[in-house]
């Protein structure tokens, strides 16, 4: 039971890593990124290729995360520009279409070019025991990575000027402009950072189980559910929603099997949205 709970929390943290990028990009740019899972896959596959070429696992993972960031930067500075030139619902719709198209292209290219590549990171010690409970080393490492990433993100948002600027744009873009803040420049930075977080999510997936080229849409879907349940402008909510849905996912998988798990997950999401339509911590960033 405790082992399932730990697995659920780890899965949840990994989903949150992905979902927080969706939250940030939507909050700052007004674009709901349907290619976010593909950022993770690009990062993961880049790491896998480095591993295959004989690179040190840490270096390979760092290159994968940076690769995802560069991919995000390129997408922001090229494909998303027409969306940023629009406003309101037009931007949202155009952003959805552009990122959906991008996800198809990335999926197609990766399937064609790297169909047999997947990222699996094996640790020297597969498991260890704490108070009589067997814990997978990969779960513990993945949880630590995700928690450190979130702690750094929260500290960055709370304590640095750039973090405050980001929160200000999420809360009120017009108000930020009146303070002399150029939202476009900050947006590029955030898309890059979010893509790197997705890349980290991809690496964590490779650590936890395995990351294949076909997983982009699945990761995007889960991350979107988490972001919506958490409230698409709330980072605290995203973290809480990820952990909640991760735990539901782990218990459902164990007790009722994979087929019903997705239904239970979606039902939990729908129930949460019914109770808290604007997200778990709708009013907080």
């Amino acid at each position: 039971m405790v082992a399932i709970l730990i697995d659920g929390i780890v899965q949840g943290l990994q989903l949150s890593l992905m979902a927080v990028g969706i939250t940030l990009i939507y909050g700052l740019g007004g674009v709901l990124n349907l290619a976010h899972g593909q950022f993770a896959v690009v990062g993961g596959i880049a790491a896998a290729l480095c591993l295959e070429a004989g690179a040190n696992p840490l270096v390979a993972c760092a290159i994968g995360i940076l690769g995802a960031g560069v991919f995000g930067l390129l997408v922001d500075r090229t494909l998303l520009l027409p969306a940023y030139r629009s406003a309101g619902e037009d931007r949202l719709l155009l952003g959805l279409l552009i990122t959906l198209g991008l996800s198809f292209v990335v999926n197609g290219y990766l399937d064609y070019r790297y169909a047999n590549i997947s990222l699996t990171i094996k640790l020297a010690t597969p498991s260890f025991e704490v108070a009589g409970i067997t814990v997978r080393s990969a779960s513990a490492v993945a949880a630590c990575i995700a928690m450190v990433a979130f702690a750094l993100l929260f500290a960055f948002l709370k304590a640095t000027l750039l973090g405050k600027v980001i929160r200000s744009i999420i809360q009120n873009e017009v108000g930020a402009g009146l303070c002399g803040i150029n939202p476009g420049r900050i947006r590029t930075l955030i898309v890059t950072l979010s893509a790197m977080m997705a890349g980290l999510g991809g690496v964590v997936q490779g650590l936890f189980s395995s990351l294949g080229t076909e997983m982009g849409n699945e990761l995007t879907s889960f991350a979107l559910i988490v972001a919506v349940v958490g409230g698409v402008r709330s980072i605290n909510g995203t973290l809480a929603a990820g952990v909640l849905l991760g735990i539901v996912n782990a218990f459902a998988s164990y007790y009722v099997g994979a087929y019903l798990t997705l239904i239970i997950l979606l039902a939990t999401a729908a129930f949460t949205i019914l109770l808290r339509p604007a997200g778990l911590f709708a009013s907080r960033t």
Partner: protein
Amino acid sequence: MSVVIETQEIEVAYGDMSVVRGVSLEVRRGEAVAVIGPNGAGKTTLFKAIAGMLALRRGRIVFEGARFDGLRHYDVVRRGVVYVPAERELFPQMSVLENLELGAYTNYASRAERLKFVLGVFPRLDERKGQMAGTLSGGEQQMLAVGRGLMAKPSILLLDEPSTGLAPLFVSEMYRQLSRLRAEGLTILLAEQQIPHALAFTDRAYVLENGGIRLSGKSKDLLGDPEIQRTYLGMA
């Protein structure tokens, strides 16, 4: 006194509809100038155009001798033109202190000195420093909006309807604090529907009607003008 900002025959439109038509006005250093007029006269549109939030269809804006129109609104702030809209546009889930600090984004190095100044002008904000902006009363939010604008050390402050939605007591308090800022040499362009307050506070005023300037002159002269008294002050 040198001219800080000048609009020359500017026209601003939403689609095909011109809202501001051929408006020319100027504000000199250290002056407080009011733009008064009824709802829908084009005051907010005029201010948004000066602040770079709306494009001009015609005319130009000159700031400290150089052409100024065409800049984005965040670059306008860097030049020293700071707009405080009637909607306030605060960051509701950030503390009063964080809101003020972000006001100093364009001159962040001097934020401590500016903060001391602003909290001196609005001591009530000092008492509420740690409180979320969204939980402040309307009057306190207005003080915060003006305080945030002051943090940028503006060459000119554009104040749009600072008395909107405020209780009479807060309106008087707000104008008392604005008078103090004036005394320290701040240049202010004010749009206001509370005409007695606006005319008592400013040196000169422009009366805007249907997007064009209908009258202009010294505020104290306008306050005694029979037409102004009849149309805007409800005097027979």
